[in-house]
């Protein structure tokens, strides 16, 4: 009896692990899209209003970037430091993080024309990453769920 209960728990655990993994992948796509929107917003604010970065961060709202702590940190320091501070809560890959680091390291150091070009370049780069991630999401989510359930099932069988 206990054995069956244990096997059921293991199977459930495996399934949940699979769901969590697919959730992390979904979050990665959401974070990339959120950064892409932020870069677009920054570009528009610089182009139209020459708004300073601290004012841009203070006035900007985005649930995903608030949840990972980026916006909160950016409002009191700058984008580069904020990215460093929330690194542990980001689900993006090393390459994607590297691109964001390059973006924020150089942001705000040049004239308006160069800044808008800089923003446009990285908006496309991060946008491409986000689109690729979003495109693969259904397949990846299915894979994660399947492997999770399969792994849980196999372990349950072994226990039994």
């Amino acid at each position, binding site marked *: 009896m206990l054995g069956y209960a244990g096997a059921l728990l293991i199977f459930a655990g495996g399934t949940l692990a699979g769901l969590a993994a697919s959730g992390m992948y979904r979050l990665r796509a959401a974070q990339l899209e959120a950064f892409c929107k932020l870069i677009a917003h920054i570009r528009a604010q610089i182009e139209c209003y020459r708004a300073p970065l601290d004012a841009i961060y203070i006035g900007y709202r985005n649930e995903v970037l608030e949840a990972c702590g980026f916006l909160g940190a950016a409002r009191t320091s700058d984008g580069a430091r904020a990215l460093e501070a929330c690194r542990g809560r980001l689900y993006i890959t090393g390459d994607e993080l590297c691109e964001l680091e390059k973006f924020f390291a150089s942001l705000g150091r040049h004239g308006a024309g*160069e800044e808008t070009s800089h923003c446009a370049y990285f908006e496309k780069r991060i946008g491409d990453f986000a689109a690729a991630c979003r495109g693969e999401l259904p397949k990846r989510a299915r894979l994660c769920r399947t492997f999770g359930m399969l792994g849980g099932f196999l372990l349950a069988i072994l226990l039994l």
Partner: protein
Amino acid sequence: MNGRGQLPVVLTDSLPDVLLAELYGLVDSGRIRFGDLNEVRLRTGRPASLTCAGENRVLAAKITPAQMEECVTRLCRGSVYAHGETIREGYLMAEGGLRVGVCGRCDEGSGSVREITSLNIRIPHMVRDVCGGVYRRCLQSGRAASMLIYSPPGVGKTTLLRDLAARLSGEGGRRVALIDTRGELYIPEMFADSLCDLLVGYSRARGIEIATRTLSPEVIVCDELGDADEARAILSAQNTGVPIIASAHAASVGELLRRPNIRMLHEAGIFDCYVGLGRERINGRLSRCFSFTFTDREALCSDMPVRC
């Protein structure tokens, strides 16, 4: 207060560490007094320098291009582009009213500065109660008089104008329009509880025009009169009868009136009095006390062959 603690926070946050360490060393050891520190100058690839009590002091710290870029970025609070217009004009206004002169490699076509290679960070000092003689002379007849304050550069015209504007709009109870084109005149603490309207960043000509049309000031104060547009704006303001207190670079009244735009204003009878500003050198240091030379317009008209 420890001298080091008097350095503006925006300055200590922006300067390269190697320069800041040297500056702290000089202030802490008493080799320079904070009150004498007028400017901190950075030049890419060359030693930084200080201007203390009108004298140059070269430092050991050399500024690299990366340090210069970082300093400019911090002075602009991480948004250099937001200061593009003023940088094209040769300056930027940092936090706390710190005015920084900027120059470097300019793109002739667009007018934008491609590479900043020199910074002149001017340290504002809240100097009060230095305008006594000028203040009394200004209000001698009850109504504020129009005055032109002159001296060579670096003597303290801006310091005097600031104190005078604060006193006129505070204790004097006059509505003062302060045309602060480069953000050098206004220090918030000096104008608390005053009747001063502040026009920051406006050209002098436009600031005078807006002040006279919309603010009904009892006195207009502006710094560094120079060009024909400013002279025309003053002539136009004179139609409304608003007294103007301004400053100009000159070592003497004669030199002052040899400048065509100032001459034009003199002949139109704009200024009631010309105030020469001086400071003595004691043991090689500029004294903190100003001396004034008052020359009434009538005296000039009787002495000089000009049409009044």
